């Protein structure tokens, strides 16, 4: 029977030291003395700083686990702001009785994902609470990235103009549908995996000409519909999306049809929306497709006017309607 987390692991004494020394430090590659803060060097760039907490249920799902997600999510928030992600913190709140083997697996995933994304986890914290006071494990990651002056505009979209083109790097909704299926014990003909992935390398291929990329955001809770509506309101512009151009995995489409979900409102964890200059779109798409996470990159619409804050969907059958902000909670604890 495997070892379990106990309250003494969170108490700061010998067991806590042992937990950090044996389970976190070697995997996160934290060398040097254990100080209260990590001391990092910062060249004279702007710093992007973000944080996210992860409470996903189930902890382990096809395509990843809460640990992988905790790294990807924070790396992506930095990347779509135009920053190069550098350092992450990782704080754990663990329920008494949690399985040590499962903790090791989560931590190993975090270390692997951090390595492949080229970021370092440099500081962390562990708390253990009594049974029933938190649901198994919650993780918070905060991250800093370096932002050069020529990419500051991408988070606010201040250079967006009429005629700009909308690009997505692959079919949205895989993560949400994978989680929903895992919760309900549903299966698929062809296995569906969460799209959970770090996108910083992909973003680097996109910003070769930084002035050509006008806006980026990752599609998490609320999906594409939410990002588009937020953007329309932020810039007071009309956005038109062609339903036929939005790629969707067949399984996602099937599940959404039978359960009455709109796939455009479902969360992804490895998809981004970019708004780019029309004359650079082809070149950007080509570069995106050289990256593993950009192979499915396509144009899905454009900014059609600079006046009314609206999102219009051209239905694949010829009709037209507004694509509204999704309301209510479609799926809880999706990330």
């Amino acid at each position, binding site marked *: 029977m495997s070892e379990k987390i106990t309250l003494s692991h969170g108490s700061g004494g010998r067991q806590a030291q042992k937990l950090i020394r044996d389970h976190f430090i070697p995997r996160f590659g934290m060398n040097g003395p254990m100080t209260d803060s990590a001391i990092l060097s910062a060249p004279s760039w702007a710093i992007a700083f973000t944080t996210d907490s992860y409470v996903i249920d189930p902890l382990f799902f096809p395509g990843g686990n809460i640990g992988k997600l905790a790294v990807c999510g924070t790396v992506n928030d930095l990347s779509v702001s135009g920053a190069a992600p550098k350092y992450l913190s990782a704080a754990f709140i663990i329920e008494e009785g949690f399985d040590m083997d499962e903790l090791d697996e989560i931590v190993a995933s975090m270390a692997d994902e951090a390595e492949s994304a080229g970021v370092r986890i440099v500081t962390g914290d562990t708390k253990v609470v009594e049974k029933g006071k938190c649901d198994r494990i919650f993780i918070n990651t905060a991250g800093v990235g370096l932002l050069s002056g020529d990419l500051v505009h991408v988070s606010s979209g201040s250079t967006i103009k009429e005629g700009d083109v909308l690009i997505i790097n692959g079919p949205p909704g895989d993560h949400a549908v994978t989680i929903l299926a895992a919760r309900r014990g549903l299966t698929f003909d062809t296995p569906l995996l969460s799209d959970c992935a770090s996108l910083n390398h992909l973003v680097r291929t996109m910003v070769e000409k930084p002035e050509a990329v006008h806006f980026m955001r990752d599609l998490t809770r609320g999906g594409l519909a939410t990002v588009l509506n937020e953007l329309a309101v932020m810039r007071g512009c009309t956005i038109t999306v062609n339903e036929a151009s939005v790629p969707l995995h067949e399984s996602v489409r099937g599940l959404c049809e*039978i359960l009455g979900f709109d796939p455009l409102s479902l969360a992804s964890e490895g998809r981004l929306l970019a708004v780019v200059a029309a004359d650079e779109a082809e070149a950007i798409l080509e570069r995106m497709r050289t990256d593993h996470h950009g192979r499915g990159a396509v144009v899905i619409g454009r900014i059609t006017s600079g006046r009314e804050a609206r999102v219009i969907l051209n239905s694949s059958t010829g009709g037209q309607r507004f694509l509204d902000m999704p309301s209510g909670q479609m799926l809880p604890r999706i990330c």
Partner: protein
Amino acid sequence: MCLSLPARVLKVEGDMAEVSVGGAVFRAGIQMVEDLRPGDYILLHAGFAIAKMKEDEALETLRLLNEIEASGSGTGKAGPGDDTGGRA
């Protein structure tokens, strides 16, 4: 949920079948339909098969839709007042 959708039968096991809706697999009660075989299509509603899809009728509807489309582009024969072919 109260939606119904055509689903392909994958496996039949007594009173239940495994069916696929665009790749998502569900279990459906098949007490309301007869002679189901893998490859057949049923209408799935709230976990039950409520009908077997009729291929010949489906094709007939499609034929009609093609005819209407063709008449719009000036090459078809159907015109105003013609029987739309709906089964009554």
